[in-house]
């Protein structure tokens, strides 16, 4: 069927709109950013070209950049190993209960995803408040005062607290992805597993999950990139603190470019971030195995 899928005109027509939009709104600004990254511009007024000085500093003398990447990596691991499986299991359970109950639960579980990140951040700052927050109040009430930390400002717990907030907020999304992902499984395949007499766990592991593998791959890639790109929830809770311990690259580049007036430096961070993120994406895809469809 070379003719059908080899049709140049059709493939060009399908691909061109997306290509144009992405070039117009994303590639062009990154190009600008790459140019600015070679300067010491403060965002307005005059500037001097400094070549690769910003890059040299980031790669050799900026521990915050590396810590930010490490934090994203930790978040990735927890997302993939804990959040996703739990969401998948819940999606599976929801697909087996009555339609009405399922619909109600699904809407309710999706609430955190619907709220703006500002609301989520304010809520958790309130819950984690060491003196008045409900978490510590409960801990003290059950006699666990020793672990009633100042969750978001204590250097030992800050990263964990921030990661918890991100995982909690993203849970509704993971649930959505996997629930609709389960919907891609055609009925015959699902029926076939029961005809076989296999237990439900076997059915999932041997048949359903492998069938859904492309969908799962897509979700994992999205997860990985989202973890790298995290910005608002960190910015609104710890702002990368205490002492840069909870820093993430998007927050850091924002602070450098817009707050500290180091616009050139911030743009160098952006460019490096794009390079790192693309690299990570390729690695993940390789790990997940590639078909000739790629991605």
């Amino acid at each position, binding site marked *: 069927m070379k003719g059908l899928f080899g049709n140049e005109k059709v493939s060009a027509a399908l691909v061109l709109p997306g290509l144009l939009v992405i070039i117009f709104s994303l590639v062009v600004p990154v190009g600008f950013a790459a140019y600015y990254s070679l300067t010491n511009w403060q*965002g*307005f007024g005059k500037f001097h070209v400094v070549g690769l000085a910003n890059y040299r500093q980031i790669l050799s003398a900026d521990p915050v950049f590396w810590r930010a990447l490490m934090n994203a990596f930790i978040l990735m691991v927890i997302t993939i190993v804990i959040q996703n499986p739990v969401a998948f299991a819940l999606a599976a359970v929801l697909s087996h209960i009555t339609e009405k109950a399922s619909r109600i639960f699904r809407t309710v579980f999706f609430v955190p995803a619907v709220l703006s990140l500002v609301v989520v951040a304010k809520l958790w700052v309130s819950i984690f408040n060491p003196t008045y927050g409900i978490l510590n109040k409960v801990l003290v009430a059950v006699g666990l005062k020793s672990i009633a930390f100042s969750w978001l*400002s204590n250097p030992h717990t800050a990263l964990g607290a921030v990661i918890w907030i991100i995982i909690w907020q993203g849970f509704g999304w993971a649930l959505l992805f996997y629930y609709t992902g389960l919907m891609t499984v055609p009925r015959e395949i699902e029926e076939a597993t029961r005809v076989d007499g296999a237990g439900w766990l076997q059915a999932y592991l041997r048949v359903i999950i492998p069938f859904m593998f492309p969908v799962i791959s897509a979700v994992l890639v999205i997860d990985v990139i989202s973890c790298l790109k995290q910005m608002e929830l960190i910015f609104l809770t710890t702002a990368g603190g*205490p*002492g*840069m311990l909870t820093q993430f690259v998007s927050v850091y580049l924002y602070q450098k470019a817009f707050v500290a*007036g*180091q616009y050139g430096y911030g743009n160098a961070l952006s460019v490096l971030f794009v390079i790192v993120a693309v690299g990570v994406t390729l690695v993940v895809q390789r790990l997940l195995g590639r078909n000739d469809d790629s991605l």
Partner: protein
Amino acid sequence: MKRIAVALLALCIAGALGAQAKVTLKMGDNLSDRSTGWGAVVEQINTEFKAANPGVDIVTESYPDQPYQEKIKIYATAKQLPDVFKYWSFSTLLKPLADSGFVLPLNKADFAKYNYVPGSLESNVWGGKLYGIPVSADFWVIYYNQKLFKDAGVTVPTTIEDLEAMAPKFKAKGIIPIVTDGKDAWPLSIIYDVLCERVNGDFSRQQAALDRKAKFTDPDFVEGARQYVKFMQSGLFADDLTVSDYGASRNLFGQEKAAMYIMGPWEMGLATDPSFSDEFRANVNAFKFPVLKNGKGKIDDLEAWFGGNYVISSASKNKDLDLKYLKYYAERFPVLAWQQHAAFPAQKITTLDSDTPVAKTLVKILGDAKMTSGTTTIDRGTPQFKDDHQNFIRELSSGLITAEEFCKKIDASAETASKQ
């Protein structure tokens, strides 16, 4: 005859159209809420100005602080600045705009008759030119709840040591002794400034260090940092100081869960804020930042600066109108702002009988001041220095670095800033 009539008619129409021709004054500020406070005052000034100047329309873009600064910078680069906009006078904010030629220099003589507090107009002078008119007098005080003080059996402290000793008394009652906006860090940096002055009695030391005639690792600064650490560890602040933001800390004070609130005079509205209880409103007052027992700083040395100002874009097409607006603003603002407790003007205030006790105290504190600091240290350097300073003070407050390490880091940042 007909021709003349037609010509006359055309002239009349043209005249009418000309009179209708609207000039739009584009403005920008960080006062998003136009229904109360400062935003409402500006709306009133604008309404009065439009009434007195038919044919003029005013359109304002308002955003909260951070987005506002970002957008102004973007507008500057894109050459689309508003005609008149509210900004800050600091070297971290106004100076870069002025240096790049985006702000119109003003004639100081034009504003001589508006009773500006001495030093206020000067804070907008760069390279010998005046770049904006100051709108607020900002100074550092400690607000307190008189009832909570009485309940804990304490009186207004005059020394820092006395203040630190009060902490356990409040905590015994389940009250947080002091709250402030630790999340944004700048209040913490200002507290550090004040403590340094209480040690060395000399506000000019900060600028000297920035000019590299002195160092931030000199003994007086290190002692100031040590005093800061002592202040932080005295139990006066809640554990979550560095994540407690402006709104949360203000509300804790207003809900009478905290006895003191370190902030500037713009919070005199606490006494008339309908969100809070009558009891709180009746009991809120302020006192001067205490001194160190063995320090050189005196109680009437006041950390005071003039933060807010209004400037004119150098690319504005209506410069005369803009100037007219500024003058009108200068005339009406101190009266309206004081009446509505919206802001503490940088001009002579006419006190009213209806003034709240805290408002009267604030006027007195400013009036008593024998020496003022001028712009706060974080705003005297480059934006990078400010960002660094705020990061380091947060680390110091969290106990992640020592006083000595803090001073070394500040000094290194100042060194970098001096080369830029």
